[in-house]
């Protein structure tokens, strides 16, 4: 008990310095936590993927379509429960900076494959009836203040022209991993229009989403589908939804790695700051340490004092930083929702925060500690801070 009181008293002997150091640790922990969450946001698609969904696409690359006729063939593969299909539309709403994902999908099968999109039965019925209708996620609709019945025009980049859609429903996510900023419309609207304007591009599908009966058969089903279309005009590549999403992340791997490295740099920066504080503190107290040694305290007692003080400072800063991480993440989610639809602080991040603060506390105490232990009594008493 006395040790703790001593630690706190010591830590706040120089109020300004301790307060500044704690503030520094708070900022660093906050930055570290947000960067970790940012990396988590990158992997959000992976987290949200289901083990019972497969994605089939053209083996050459995503920009090549698959024939619509594959649908029936895939449906016949044993283990396949349902098949949906769609195209990445790549439309632009007014300006390029208003980016959001927009897909043309077969609505009925797609919604049954994605039970995590929650939609009222009435809205669903209206959406399914209207070929020009679209569904928007809650966040997307909030951002642009779309009301059901509003007409929204997208400018096609892959499919030229201006495309009009009518908002028929707003979906919510079942849990916070679900992306609530997508724009989904009828594939038949796209296809029927293409039949008139660009018949060569009609009846082609960007990807098939396949629901399998059980996660265990996913591997076999994927292999069976790819085998079926081997040596055909459009060979397929079938992966679980998770592998498909991971493939996307791998492509931007360099950026994820950079953010990861940078998130550790901030820990090193704060390490230097805390080490500096501890070095100053102990230098000022060399005389004191000499007195304590004279009284019979050993090196280990001094070590406990210095280490303890360093940990008091870093852990206080860490607690403040963690407390601020949640409102900061909520703010980012609100302001930058288009770029990071999912921005949730993970429990794992908090453990990392604590580990980092602990590490900083220990490392920062090392040099001052070794100096204080090594000091000779006479020398310490003679020395003026």
């Amino acid at each position, binding site marked *: 008990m006395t040790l703790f009181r001593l630690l706190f008293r010591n830590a706040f002997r120089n109020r*300004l*310095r301790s307060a*500044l*150091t704690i*503030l*520094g640790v708070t*900022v*660093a922990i*906050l*930055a570290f936590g947000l*960067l970790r969450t940012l990396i988590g946001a990158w992997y959000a698609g992976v987290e949200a993927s289901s083990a019972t969904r497969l994605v089939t696409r053209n*083996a*050459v*690359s*995503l*920009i*090549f379509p698959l024939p619509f006729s594959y649908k029936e063939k895939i449906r016949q593969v044993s283990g396949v429960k349902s098949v949906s299909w769609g195209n990445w539309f*790549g439309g632009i709403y007014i300006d*390029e900076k208003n980016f959001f994902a927009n897909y043309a999908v077969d609505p009925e099968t797609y919604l049954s494959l994605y039970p995590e999109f929650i939609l009222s039965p009435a809205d669903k019925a209206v959406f399914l009836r209207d070929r020009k209708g679209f569904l928007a996620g809650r966040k997307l609709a909030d951002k642009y203040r779309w009301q059901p019945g509003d007409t929204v025009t997208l*400018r*096609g*980049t*892959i499919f*030229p*022209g201006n495309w009009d859609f009518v908002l028929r429903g707003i979906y919510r996510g079942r849990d916070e991993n679900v992306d609530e900023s997508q724009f989904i419309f009828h594939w038949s609207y796209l296809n029927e229009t293409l039949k008139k304007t660009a018949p*060569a591009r009609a009846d082609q599908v960007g990807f098939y989403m396949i629901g399998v009966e059980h996660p265990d058969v996913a591997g076999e089903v994927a292999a069976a589908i790819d085998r079926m279309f081997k*040596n055909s*005009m459009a*060979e397929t*590549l079938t992966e679980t939804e998770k592998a498909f999403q991971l*493939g996307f992340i*791998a*492509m*931007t*791997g*360099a*950026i994820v790695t*950079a*953010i990861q490295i*940078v998130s550790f*740099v*901030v820990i*090193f*920066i*704060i390490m*230097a*700051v805390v*080490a*500096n*504080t501890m*070095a*100053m503190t102990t230098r000022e107290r060399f005389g004191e340490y000499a007195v304590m040694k004279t009284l019979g305290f050993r090196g280990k007692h001094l070590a406990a004092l210095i280490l303890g003080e360093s940990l008091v400072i870093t852990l206080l800063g860490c607690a403040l930083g963690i407390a601020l991480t949640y409102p900061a993440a909520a703010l980012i989610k609100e302001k930058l929702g288009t770029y990071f639809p999912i921005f949730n602080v993970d429990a794992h991040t908090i453990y990392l925060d604590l580990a980092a603060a602990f590490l900083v506390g220990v490392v920062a105490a090392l*040099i001052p500690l070794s100096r204080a232990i090594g000091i000779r009594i006479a020398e310490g008493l003679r020395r003026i*801070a």
Partner: protein
Amino acid sequence: MILPISYTLRNLWTRRLTTALTIAGMALVVFVFAAILMLAEGLQKTLVETGSFDNIVVIRKGAVSEVQSSVARDQAAVVETEPEIALGPEGQLLLARELVVLITLPKRVTGSPGNVVLRGIASASVTLRPQVKLVAGRRPRPGSMEMMAGISIAQRFQGGGLNETLCCGMRNWRIVGVFDAGNRGYSSEIWGDADQLMSAFRRPAYSSVIFRLRDSEGFERVKARLEQDPRLTVEFKRETKYYAEQSELMAKFLRILGLTLTLIFSLGAMIGAMITMYAAVANRTGEIGTLRALGFQRRDILMAFLMESLLLGLLGGVVGLFLASFLQLITVSTMNFQTFSELAFSFTLTPKIVISSLLFALIMGFVGGVLPAMRAARMKIVDALRTG
């Protein structure tokens, strides 16, 4: 009287450990600051230098990149008849109808997939891009199933090396040459015969038409005339502008990310400097009193401490930049969001980045030092001498 600079230098030297730790903190911030700016600069430079000013890219209206675009054969034929197109030494048109598609290839090291640009070229394509130099093997023969790969593809992707085979569109394509276009986008592409690729991928239309202008001034003329032409649904862009646009979004993303990060990080480093400077002031209270008694003005004391903190910042900036300059040896290969394809580029240090990094470091030093220096300057002579 102004306090000599050696006074400041010696003060820093006496408290070596503290000085070193403060500088280390600032150096790390400057390192991150410079690194991210260098990354964004490298990306932009690579794409901007890819284009030539006198080359014109023709893509479908509304398409953002060649990959999304399609130019039908009859439209390409209309473009081909324009008088502004330059002629080569043998009287051939300096115009190439090209096909651009993406193929997925596994990386050599990790095996993870990347989207690689596959460009179907015509005979004039190489003449239009004099930056492209063959470094191994030979050029693919026109009309054959041979290809040549850019050097960053040859090094990084399976199937991209010399004499390796790529398999797509139900055919096998042999890499017969490797070319280097320096730090340009072409180094991250694979080139093969356009007509062969079109039949392999069942593409009825080209992706783009590239031509050289006879004289640079002719651009507005040909653009105005052809964009009015009812037979065409295309856009004309100078190649430099076309490639510059493809780096905008991602470079902006990197810059914003970088600035936000370094602003937050710099708080930590500024606090570090502030702690150091407050300690310096507290430890030298008696000294400050003596200096004032000797006749040095408040101004001089303020300047001396501010100099000390600015010096800390400058040293941090120099160390950070020194470390960051080694990054130039590293080449990054990642997907450009805008084109959805792999692009290799290196960290690029420009004088502008050097200046802004040093300025940033000085600002950190200033903000960290201004409050402690003011405290030192405000001290009353008597009080200061008494505490000392």
